[in-house]
């Protein structure tokens, strides 16, 4: 891997500052693709860059989230203290906003908008269901581009089921407050919440030998068959129904791809991991299992793109195991009550404790000279700043990992107010070979990551 035209991404990004010219990336693309294909077995070859988005609901107690000092000399505030071991491997970013979390004329519904705009940067259409529309999320933009290289284009994890009844938020369909990842502007990617099922899906090899070959052949035939069915049917349907068949067809293609890719072995040998037996009673154990699976999926290069919704937006879960008996959402409307602030802080810190567990785990997995964390970008945050104010600016955001040595970590990066969160996403997409010129309300790439 020493041909002169194989510029490392780092060189390009450093050389051009943050304004990365598209043609350069296109020149790089084949090389990167090749490298990624073969990565893993040969420690000298670069490992692919992975990207995950971890969501926590109801905002934060920002006074204890935002570091006082800027730059490298910052100290971790109370909520972020658990991240001490990985402080040098992350960046706290202040000043980002997600404008489409705001009403913008649509009235109440900040929770539904917070989650649905978080990765899309688009305004969710206010509907109970008839015409759901928001936008394609950043993870899915990447999944479309680089998902073809791995068994799973993307992985969607969570801990909460979608709402089972009633109205979720002020005239918005529950789809908006349940789903963070949007495959198309109207199709959310459902998330897996049961670690047992997620494990089986990711790692189960099922039958072996002839039986496996036959099963794959059968599955392929079944999919071919239903694909034809669906095409015939689609031709006879009205537009709205056609859209549903589009979802179906696109899912069939995704599965066909998976059967093709499934033949390849995981590129890195995975450690022994006991199969989870279901959703643990203990929420903390549940969160840890999901993080474990995410780490394993990245480690084995089963996917390079993931989302993890630690709790649905507007979640009213109580946290009695850390002494908080009240519902999180009820508390977040603290009305300035210091006792409630105290409890929110504890919930926030609880979530961060588990983020630290995950990041430390990634840091402990080596890939050549770097760690898996170095080769990742883990964005952690909420689409609401303060739960009481329901503001969508100055969002609590942590970006961990060095994106394959393209991000200078160990800093508190303070941006101008109202910097679109989607600008950060453009810069992240560049680093996973999925550059786009614009996404949602982005106004350009984010300066200051390097």
């Amino acid at each position, binding site marked *: 891997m020493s041909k002169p035209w194989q510029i490392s991404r780092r060189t390009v990004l450093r050389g051009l500052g943050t304004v990365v010219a598209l043609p350069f990336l296109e020149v790089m693309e084949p090389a990167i693709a090749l490298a990624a294909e073969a990565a893993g077995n040969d420690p000298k070859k670069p490992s692919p860059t992975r990207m995950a988005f971890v969501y926590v609901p109801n905002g934060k107690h920002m006074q204890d989230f935002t570091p006082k000092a800027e730059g490298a000399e910052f100290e971790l505030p109370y909520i972020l203290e658990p991240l001490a071991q990985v402080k040098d491997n992350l960046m706290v970013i202040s000043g980002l906003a997600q404008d489409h979390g*705001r009403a913008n004329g*649509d*009235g*109440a*519904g*900040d929770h539904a908008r917070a989650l649905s705009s978080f990765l899309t940067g688009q305004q969710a259409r*206010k509907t*109970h*269901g*008839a015409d*759901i529309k928001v936008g394609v999320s950043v993870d899915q933009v990447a999944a479309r581009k680089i998902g073809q290289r791995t068994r799973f284009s993307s992985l969607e994890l969570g801990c909460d*089921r*979608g*709402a*089972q*009844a009633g*109205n979720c938020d002020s*005239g918005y*369909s*529950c*789809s908006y407050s*349940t789903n963070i990842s949007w495959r198309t502007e109207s199709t*959310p*990617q*459902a998330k*897996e*919440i*049961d670690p047992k*099922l997620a494990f089986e*899906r990711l790692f189960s090899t099922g039958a072996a030998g002839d039986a496996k070959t*036959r099963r794959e*052949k059968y*599955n392929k*035939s*079944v999919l071919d*068959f*239903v694909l*034809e*069915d669906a095409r015939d*049917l689609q031709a006879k*349907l*009205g537009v*709205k*129904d056609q859209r*549903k068949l589009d*979802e179906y067809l696109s*899912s*069939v293609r995704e599965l066909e791809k998976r059967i093709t890719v499934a033949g390849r072995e995981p590129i890195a040998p995975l450690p022994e991991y006991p199969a989870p037996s279901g959703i643990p009673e203990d929420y903390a154990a549940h969160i840890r299992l999901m993080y474990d699976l995410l780490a394993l999926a990245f480690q084995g290069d089963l996917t390079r793109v993931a989302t993890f919704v630690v709790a649905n937006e507007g979640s*009213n879960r*109580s946290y009695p195991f850390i002494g908080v*008996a*009240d*519902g999180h959402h*009820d508390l977040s409307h*603290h*009305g*300035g009550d210091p006792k409630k602030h105290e409890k929110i802080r504890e919930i926030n810190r609880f979530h961060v404790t588990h983020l630290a567990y995950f990041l430390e785990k990634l840091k402990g997995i080596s890939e050549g000279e770097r760690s898996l964390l170095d080769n990742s970008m883990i964005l952690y945050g909420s689409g609401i700043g303060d739960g*009481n*104010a*329901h503001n969508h600016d100055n969002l609590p955001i942590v970006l961990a990992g060095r994106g394959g040595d393209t991000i200078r970590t160990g800093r508190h990066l303070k941006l101008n107010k109202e910097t679109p969160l989607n600008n950060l996403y453009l810069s992240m997409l560049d680093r996973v070979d999925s550059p786009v010129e614009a996404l949602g309300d982005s106004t350009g790439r984010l300066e200051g990551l390097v």
Partner: protein
Amino acid sequence: MRRSAIILGIVCGLAAPFARGLHADDAPAAADSAAAETAAAADFRQRLEPLAAKFCLECHSGAEPMGELDLKGLFERLSVATDREPWDKIAQRLRAKEMPPDEAPQLSDDQRQQLLSWVDTGLARNNCGQERDPGRVTIRRLNRNEYNNTVRDLLGVDFHPADDFPSDDVGYGFDNIGDVLAMPPILLEKYLSAAQKITERALGTEQANLVTSEVTGGQIIDEGWHFLASPTEVRTKVRMFGSGHYIVRAQAYGEPAGDEPPKLEFYLDTQLVRTVEVHATKDRPQTYEAWITTKGGQHSVSVVYKNDFYNADASPPQDRNVAVRELELMGPYPATYQQLIPREHTPEDQKLLAREIVAGFMQRAFRRPVAAAEVDRMMRLTELAESEGEPLGGQIALAMQAVLVSPHFLFRVELDPAASDPGGVRTLNDYELASRLSYFLWSTMPDAELFELARLNKLHEPAELDGQVKRMLADAKSQALVENFAGQWLQLRNLKIAAPDKQVYPDFDEALREAMQTETELFFAAIMREDRSVLDFIDADFTFVNERLARHYGLPDVKGKEFRRVSLDGNHRGGVLAQASVLTVTSNPTRTSPVKRGKWVLDNLLGTPPPPPPADVPPLEEAGVMLTGALRERMEQHRAKPVCASCHKSMDPLGFGLENYDGIGSWREADGKFPIDPSGTLPSGQTFASPRELKAILKERRDEFVRCLAERMLTYGLGRGVEYSDRCTVDDIAKAVAQNEHKFSSLILAVVHSDAFQKRSGKGSKP
């Protein structure tokens, strides 16, 4: 904020003011309405047409108006009565501020409001003639419950494979809304793997179940054949692992003579299970099979040759013989194998049988007749499996897997009226009607009786339809309506995730949680099965309790885990508002929430949801309010702020009226040191002093309740949101219920008889 209130209103309740207006309008003479029409037209010409011309006509006129909406023609006619649909759409677009588009010059809020109120008034005046717009349901994917139930009824396996699927998103309060049910890759992946598991359950797996043993008997000749030249048998001893159904297979050929073919009798131990005639000849031996059903353990399986025949006098001598080899046992198979592959077959008719089975299965799975060409295509899969060496069961299994992943199974497909006529309306055929009925009342596929009536094209006949609805409600499968409709309407499903604080409510445990849920389900089921008045939901003199719940309610003399019906004369219970389930899901973990309870009543019983809170409620300390005293007093201080008052004065009193029930629904007279004050005044001026009086007021407002329930039931029954244009249908249903003593069945029947349920319009089939 005003706008959101209106949008929300559409879902459940907006129609209420219209309806009142309408009922009041029933009386006036046509002349009045014509005069109103003329006045409205003059008003439009003078005040609004210039506005509309300025902001709308540039795009919406000419040869190719945008969105196929030609406002010029619309304004010339100016008849909301004949142009209802485009006016409705205009109202929707204006209301949602979708028009004018962002890049165009914008109406001021006031101008927008003027236009909207003119259109809304016109729409209301032209309400509800004879015609009903049936609306259009987006094809509905089976949700998780429907999938489980359908698989159960289709294949006879009841193991809830869909419990492993991602949850279905909720819209309009329900999880069966076609537009909301998405089909992401993870779900298709689960369907594919579930299909395999399901057919394995239903048909068994061949490889795993092979049982072989040494075969004895007859005279062994070449290639392992046992030759039977006289009445004798071929036998094998087997140890069967587990009870169930086994197939015995024997290859055989005969040497015919005399007036009948050689016959073989299959025996399990001493019991004859099947007799076959052996027509196969030595050059083309064939496999014969028989089903046996047995317990596990040691058994003998034999094939006996009895009808030997020898005629030495004939020339040449006639000699009937038979040869057998490879006595083979497969099993145990699940009982469903025999139901799905109903008869033994011979090699000659295996293909025919496979086709018959697959065609029958497709028909039931797709819930409609299937074309020969569709079956032909499917047979390519059985052929593939056959070429891989699969026996019949494996061939059928592969075809079934394809059926279970096919869009014709996973979606409930109804085709639009002719594509050339997007505004057209068509009546659903009887098969489609059967599916609508069965998924509405049973959350599953139609049963044999519904299919038969559909085949005979009789299901739509009103008397037949009534009879079927009553039969279906009486059937045990209508429990699905309890779990899925009541579970979501009353939000019982949220009880599973309710987390009352152990410190505040040490009495709460899982047994109580379960009992709460069971009470409300039994209560709903009683109203449904006994065809009681739906007003019982508001207040009733009976409920269902077991010992655990009776203790919670302070009801004496109830022992044991079983639920029983109890009379509620003279105590604090009665109706869903006094049931612990509803009271718990509307509480916070550590205390009651009068606001949540009040909102719950407005949302789910009265159908007049309050507008959502403004986006920027300032924290209380900024408003200079220090909250002190009982919860009620603190909330009243809160409410003193004008921005909050307008809505909270409709929500909070309802909640305060239920304050005697604590956060898990026990009765209390005081909250800590503060005595409970359950009195209140509603915005209407009605006052009450106790929960009982509050319920009496709600019962007086029965029309609002019935309308709300009708909207919910219609939403659930159709699988789509009930829109503005459905308000006449909702009127019809509410009226029918009121005229039939509010009987539960009258509600269901009115939904089923509505055009919305029985017809389909092409509206929206084009972009």
